[in-house]
């Protein structure tokens, strides 16, 4: 409009007035950790990859997962998922099924044949990794992708450790282990199978030949149940039982089996034996509600007709030609201060008898430390390490079950990731440090639930019990693509900006602009500091800060 205007008319926009001077506080965009991230043993950016699942960017989600954990398909099946325990959504309806979604993405990567990007640089420094289980493979992956020359020494005939030899196929099929381990070795990791580093001299030699050594031999020696004669043919330790049955061989023990222990290994033994047609009783010191195994494992074992006798101990074994007569007694079990510590008191006059054909103790495993005692000392059953997983001997690092009592696969994977960063920094000091410790977590009260309607979790279904007992097929049936997208959409994205535009569109002062490529910026000239953007942020990723004149 170029017509002359009356001098009485307005002649400029209100933008001439800088209302930002009214402000005493200013919104600040700062992504803060979600509780699931804080709880995740591998520091997984869960809110980020769940968002990528909702955007049908499965490859992006997989890359995000792979940053911290090379085993999404494995972890998605067997992780003890402390992320879900920490999930804020439980205060609205149910936690997000993170584990089933991790499996969904992991399986997608296997089906699509995605491979790990090759290292951008090749480095000359070499690292020897002793033990090809979850910790050893995690460290191998993290070091190799940074370009280091990695060699794994594995005592068994195949890589995988507990993943391959300890977890039955109905929870984790070996084809999954093959796929995720194969991706790591395809990066150019040297592997020596069937080689054991038997003593301190052999370890010292490796230390000379390589820039650094990482010990990840796990906990391979079964704890012995006091008073039980392991030399008898009717006693077989759980690790041996699982290695044999996971290898496809059948169980040579009798018809009625007693499994002793209440952890994951005990559930694995019991449920494997049920699939081999055996009648199984599980005897645990712990009361039912205190069993250390994951609750779903216990529930599924019960569905499969495993019998439980909780809060009781084995006192005596009497072998007769018709089988074993066991004397047991009820106990009062009191957990101790630290994980794995407890006291038991036998209840007077509570003795009872059981008749079985064989006993499979599954009461945990210890690390084998004696062989290297001269090079890497340790006590309390673990190799002594500092916070960066350095042993007392320079250039030797250790993580996973050999150095920690946090006996979960993903804990070992996470520890090895941090150890790998420490190793990289040891052999080449210019390497990036581990990121700084996390900020305070986004709590439920920063989530504006007006934007999240109640919506029940999309659960994985299980195979029917009759089908389960006739094969080693996977019990849990994967989510469909539709279910996965809907489930990932339940994530609050706590503390993580999702570019929803609420802050931009709710601002009464048009003081927020969108940035190219995502994100927002506050216009200091006009922001009055009301905080409406913070209040209406659905994810709690904006925060008000005092804005003092500089």
């Amino acid at each position: 409009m170029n017509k002359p205007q009356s001098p009485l008319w307005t002649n400029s926009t209100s933008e001439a007035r800088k209302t930002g001077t009214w402000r005493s506080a200013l919104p600040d965009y700062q992504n803060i950790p979600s509780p699931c991230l804080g709880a995740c043993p591998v520091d997984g950016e869960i809110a980020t990859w769940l968002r990528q699942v909702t955007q049908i960017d499965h490859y992006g989600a997989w890359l995000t997962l792979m940053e911290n954990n090379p085993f999404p398909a494995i972890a998605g099946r067997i992780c003890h998922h402390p992320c879900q325990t920490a999930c804020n959504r439980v205060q609205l309806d149910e936690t997000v099924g993170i584990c089933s979604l991790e499996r969904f993405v992991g399986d997608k990567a296997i089906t699509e044949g995605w491979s790990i990007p090759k290292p951008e640089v090749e480095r000359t420094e070499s690292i020897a990794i002793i033990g090809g289980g979850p910790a050893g493979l995690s460290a191998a992956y993290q070091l190799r992708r940074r370009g280091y020359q990695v060699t794994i020494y594995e005592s068994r005939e195949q890589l995988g450790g507990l993943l391959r030899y300890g977890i039955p196929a109905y929870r984790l099929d070996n084809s999954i282990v093959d796929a995720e381990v194969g991706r790591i070795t395809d990066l150019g990791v040297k592997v020596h199978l069937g080689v054991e580093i038997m003593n301190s001299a052999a370890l010292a030699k490796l230390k000379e030949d390589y820039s650094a050594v990482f010990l990840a031999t796990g906990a391979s020696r079964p704890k012995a149940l006091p008073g039980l004669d392991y030399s008898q043919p009717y006693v077989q330790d759980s690790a041996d039982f699982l290695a044999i049955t996971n290898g496809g061989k059948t169980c040579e023990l009798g018809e009625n089996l007693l499994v002793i222990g209440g952890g994951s290994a005990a559930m694995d033994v019991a449920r494997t034996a049920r699939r081999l047609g055996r009648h199984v009783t599980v005897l645990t010191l712990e009361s039912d509600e205190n069993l250390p195994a994951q609750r779903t494992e216990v529930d599924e074992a019960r569905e499969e007709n495993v019998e439980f006798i909780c809060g009781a101990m084995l006192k005596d074994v009497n072998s007769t030609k018709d089988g074993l007569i066991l004397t047991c007694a009820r106990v009062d079990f009191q957990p101790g201060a630290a994980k794995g510590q407890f006291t038991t008191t036998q209840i007077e006059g509570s003795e009872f008898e059981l008749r079985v054909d064989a006993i499979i103790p599954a009461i945990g495993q210890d690390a084998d430390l004696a062989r290297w005692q001269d090079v890497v000392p340790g006590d309390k059953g673990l190799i002594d390490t500092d916070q960066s997983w350095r042993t007392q001997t320079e250039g030797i690092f250790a993580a996973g079950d050999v150095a920690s009592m946090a006996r979960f696969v993903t804990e070992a994977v996470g520890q090895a990731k941090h150890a790998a960063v420490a190793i990289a920094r040891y052999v080449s000091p210019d390497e990036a440090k581990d990121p700084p410790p996390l900020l305070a977590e986004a709590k439920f009260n920063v989530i504006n639930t007006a934007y999240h309607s109640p919506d029940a979790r999309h659960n994985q279904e299980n195979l029917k019990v009759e089908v389960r007992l006739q094969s080693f097929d996977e019990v849990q049936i994967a989510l469909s693509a539709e279910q996965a997208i809907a489930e990932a959409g339940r994530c609050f994205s706590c503390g993580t900006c999702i570019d929803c535009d609420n802050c931009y569109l709710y601002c009464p002062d048009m003081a927020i602009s969108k940035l190219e490529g995502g994100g927002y910026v506050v216009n200091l000239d006009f922001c009055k500091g009301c905080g409406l953007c913070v209040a209406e942020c659905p994810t709690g990723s904006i925060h008000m800060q005092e804005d003092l004149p500089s």
Partner: protein
Amino acid sequence: MMETIEYTDRGQFFSGHVACAGCVEALSLRVILNTVGKDAVAVVPPSCTAVICGSYPHSAANIPVFHTTLESGAASASGVKRALVAQGKNDTTVLCLAGDGGTYDIGLQALSSAAERNEDILYVCFDNEGYMNTGGQKSSSTPLSAVTGSTPAGKTTRKKNMVEILAAHRIPYIATASPSDLNDMEAKVKKAKGLRGTKVLIVLIPCLPGWGVADNSAVKVARLAVETGVFPLFEVEGGIDYKMNVTTRSRPVQEYLSTQKRYKHLTAENIATLQADVDDDWQRLVNRCG
């Protein structure tokens, strides 16, 4: 999946306006001006909108704004519309942007007359339930028991039911809207813009100083007004066909009242009365929707 807000900012409302920090009348103006678009003229009687839209020589609106008297909002808008039609500008939308004082009280006669003639205007009432721009006196829109500058012990009469008054004029479209549901607000503005005749949109504006609400909380309070049924979102077509846009109530009225200082003095009995009134009005509305 989270529902996203869909309106598009076309640059029709400018920064630098002098609404209070956190004012959702400014937010609602942003949505309405951007939805109506460039081909529009606004007529504004004395109100917060008059202050927000501009003090000479600045304007916060990217359309012409005609400031008129408090009695004559709808009459002035009618005249502007007729003048535009006389110039052949039939499609230009004429908005009347008034407060509840200019709608329920002082401008009611002009609005009733315009509605009776079915003048082709889109009349928006920013209802902050009082004369909040002149120190917070009560209007006939102030609810029962609410404290204002002129009702220090709480108002003793009910809020006037403006929708029922307007419906009696059988105008094409009447709707309520809330700054807690901007998609609904945008849809109603679009719908009203597409209809000929008198259209009235009543937007609930929780007033930060007038109601005693925190700077960041006006959207939350408006949301509670909808969720408790205090301010139902609905439309009336032709004065007869009622349609509720939100058909459930999920919270007791108490949750809405407790967010505002103007209700701080309420006794359990007062609250029960207000709850009973809301229950009664809600049922009447449900019945009307058939």
